[in-house]
């Protein structure tokens, strides 16, 4: 009797192993597919593009090593210009015949390239496109970039509670779609929380001098400053603000998520509050492993853009596995059904409109690093 049971067990295990080995596809072969990437490799914003491309490449190496899917990555440069992003999308869709596209980097570029991908039936996923209305472009358009509309209420809400904020000054870059839409959300949230907005100050990209705006803000004595800026300007603003004696808490938009802010502002960054999907110091083995691998490959720590791109690639290839074959329409359906994916950013799902469902971390800069804010 015992021998029969043991035999049965061995055969059962062998059968199970056989079944799981065939998880690639019906033929037991790896799924081969071409995935296109539109990124900013040259021009303004190349720093973001570099982080994104690095994250994707790292993921690609890992996924290909596993062998269930074999991805041929085709990377095209958009230089941050939407015409080039559109041309790149056309090239990837029609000349390279990719099964899907990850990117482009900027919301502006997505507004030009997205409709084209949608009309051509090619799933396209933005990893950093946070403007309003992106997934609504069409049913082939996805994003895993946590929009400001989810991040800011978290950071502002916690800050207001902790510091008893009643009067607030708003400062933002009005010539960039990213920072402007961040500001729109900040204003909305401030109004919803019935805060008194003492002043709204604007600046333009590439400005080196914010004294005039900061002097005005200081004179009105707000309890906090909500600032929507890219890290280039953000770091400088923090430094100049602290230097002129503006000591109140700063709540930053998505652009402040980068360790580069701390690099530029140094001690002035202490006390900065941001909400971000990415927390590199999290006590999570997946996160630690990713950070270590990334640092080894590229010589620096990954930022939010690299992390989101890394997760995006995994989301894409998981959906490819679920679809079973490199078919654009099947991939789209599989993507839309993504639920509770565990990535380095945490748990992730697409909602009914292919937008992000994810809980942000609210962080504060302490001792020169981002730490959890509570």
């Amino acid at each position, binding site marked *: 009797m015992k021998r029969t049971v043991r035999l049965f067990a061995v055969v059962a295990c062998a059968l199970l192993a056989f079944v799981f080995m065939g998880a690639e596809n019906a033929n037991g072969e790896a799924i081969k597919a071409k995935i296109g990437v539109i990124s900013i490799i040259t*021009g*303004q*914003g*190349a*720093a973001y593009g570099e982080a994104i491309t690095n994250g994707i490449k790292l993921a690609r190496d890992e996924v290909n090593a596993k062998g269930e899917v074999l991805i041929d990555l085709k990377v095209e440069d958009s230089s941050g210009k939407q015409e080039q992003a559109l041309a790149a999308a056309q090239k990837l869709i029609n000349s390279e015949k990719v099964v899907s596209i990850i990117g482009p980097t900027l919301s502006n570029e997505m507004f030009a390239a997205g409709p084209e991908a949608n009309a051509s039936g090619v799933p396209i996923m933005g990893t950093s496109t946070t403007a309003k209305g992106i997934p609504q472009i069409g049913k082939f358009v996805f994003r895993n970039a946590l929009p400001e509309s989810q991040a800011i209420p978290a950071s502002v809400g916690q800050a207001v509670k902790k510091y008893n904020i009643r009067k607030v000054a708003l400062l933002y870059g*009005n010539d960039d779609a990213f920072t402007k839409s961040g500001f729109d959300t900040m204003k909305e949230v401030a109004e919803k929380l019935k805060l008194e907005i003492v002043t709204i*100050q*604007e*600046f*333009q*990209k*590439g400005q*080196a*001098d914010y*004294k*005039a*705006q900061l*002097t*005005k803000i*200081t*004179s009105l004595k707000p309890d906090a400053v909500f600032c929507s800026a890219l890290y*280039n*300007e953000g*770091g*400088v603003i923090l*430094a*100049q603000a602290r230097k*002129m004696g503006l000591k109140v808490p700063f709540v930053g938009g998505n652009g402040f998520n980068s360790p*580069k802010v701390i690099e*530029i502002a140094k001690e002035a960054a202490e006390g900065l509050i941001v909400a971000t999907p990415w927390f590199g110091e999290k006590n999570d083995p997946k996160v630690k492993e990713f950070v270590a691998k990334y640092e080894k490959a590229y010589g620096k720590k990954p930022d939010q853009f690299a992390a989101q791109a890394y997760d995006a690639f995994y989301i894409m290839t998981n959906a490819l596995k679920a679809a079973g074959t490199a078919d654009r329409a099947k991939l789209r359906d599989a993507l839309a059904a993504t639920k509770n994916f565990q990535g380095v950013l945490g748990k992730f799902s697409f909602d009914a409109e292919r937008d992000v469902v994810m809980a942000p971390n609210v962080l504060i800069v302490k001792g020169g690093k981002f730490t959890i804010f509570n």
Partner: protein
Amino acid sequence: MFLEQLINGITLGSIYAIVALGYTLVFGVLDIINMAHGEIFMFGAFVGMLIVSKAGAPLPVAFLGAIVVTAAMGLLLERFALRPLRTRPGASHLASLISTIGVSILLENVAHKIFGSGNHLFETPFAEISFTIGPVTVYLVQVVILLISLFLMVGLSLWLSRTRAGKALRAAAENLETAGLLGVDTNRMITATVVIASAMGGIAGVLVGMAFNYINNQIGLSMGLKGLAIIIFGGMGSVYGAMAGGLILGLSETFVVAYGSSGYRDAIAFVAIIVILLIKPQGLFGQAPAEARR
């Protein structure tokens, strides 16, 4: 706050004035706008930054380095982008304008290649020192900038009016041909003018680094366009016009941000151009009427 904004405005304005002086010198003698002036200024700032922040050398060395590099750039500009056009018959003024536009694009993108697109820290050793006079805090940096600017402006005016070389330059500005006939070595004069103007741009670059602590490769473009606005406003070829125009622009920008809408800060310069071209095209201190210049 008013006094502090006033000081901000004057600091900004004096830097603008120096940049404008560079334009006005070249225009006065060569009758052309050097569209690459803004980018040369930007390189001056970066050289200063490399010397002060990366090499840790003292500030005067930064000035020296910036002056040397930008003067050299001016030399190359004159030799390769401007002089060949002078010797060609029938090349219009637009040709030199376009040629300098070409140089400016080249410089802007070379800087982008070398320095990247981010902000770089410019550490002035005495950046923290300030005095409090009543309700107002004045930084030593602001005082130094003002002093250097004044020194340059006064020095330039004296040099132009008192020294032989300066008078030769003014003669060349009046009429290049006649000056040549009277024994002025026009080629050398022109080269000297471009070199001096570029060096002034370099000095202004270091001043900007001191004033704002951060520089990036876009500052050349915006400074260049504002410098243009200033000399058109103040009068092309007029030294006083450049100085007055610079101060006025610096103060206007600061006060518009302080008391008006900060979104339009950069547009002021251009509105000023348009207004002055409609009312008094030769500028506040300008000399010959616009139609006579081609």
